[in-house]
């Protein structure tokens, strides 16, 4: 395995850790914010709602 692949894996492990679903959820929420804001509607509420939902879902998975 090249050092580049190992470095990419280390960065992924460091940032995303053991919860890729939360990372994906954050990306989707940012995309939704950009779409709603681009359409001229208020979009500030998307990220707080997403953060609360992602935290609750992550805790639910971890607590099982």
């Amino acid at each position, binding site marked *: 395995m090249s050092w580049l692949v190992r470095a990419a894996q280390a960065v992924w492990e460091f940032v995303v850790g053991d919860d890729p679903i939360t990372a994906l959820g954050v990306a989707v929420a940012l995309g939704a914010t950009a779409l709603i804001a681009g359409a001229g509607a208020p979009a500030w509420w*998307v990220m707080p709602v997403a*953060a609360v939902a992602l935290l609750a879902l992550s*805790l639910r998975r971890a607590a099982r």
Partner: protein
Amino acid sequence: MSGPQLGLAISVFLACAVEAVEALTIVLAVGVTRSWRWALAGVAAAAAALAVIVAALGPALDAVPIDALRVIVGALLLVFGLQWLRKAVLRAAGLKAQRDEVKAFAAETDAARAAALPGDGFDGYAFTIAFKGVLLEGLEVAFIVLTFGSSQHDIGLAALAAGVAVVVVILTGLAVRAPLARVPENNMKFAVGVMLTSFGVFWGAEGAGASWPGGDAALLVIIPGVLLVSLGLVQWLRRASVASALGRPA
């Protein structure tokens, strides 16, 4: 100092202090049981590596346009912050073991005594364990310093807060000459998780094009809001685990 700058300084200080306490436990353990000389050499090498990383990435991040930077930083902080917060909530709810520096110190000293002793000269074990401990704990701090600092265009303030935290922890460690078991580490981790998540929400939304009602003052609502939700989730998990232990639905 503006509100976001104060939040930056507090967040970086707390995060850095927590990581420094953990690194201090490792360095103390190998220093006491093996070799102070080579443990401190490991610390110096890790500090130099971290300085190179911050010096290389800091100016590069400053060159990125602010909106793009805030989307990237907001996403990273939010992913990172939600991980810290999840672990902190699980600890507070009793579903994950609390970090205990005395136990960690005992485990490190046992491992250090069990490892083979070197002949005269270089103690590779003491050097490597101290180097890895400081580098790995320091990487999280470097990440927080760079993301917070670049979003506020104030890496200097973030680095200063980190430096003050390290000095405070080292001086306290020198004074008590033992792992800092009385530092409220788990509460500090909870606070850092709340701050990272709050700033991630704020900058992520701004970078993606949203405008916050009240501008920067929105942070005064977001931070307490994230804290209250997190405390509520602790209570929910506690009730759920009690209900589960009693064999009835939560």
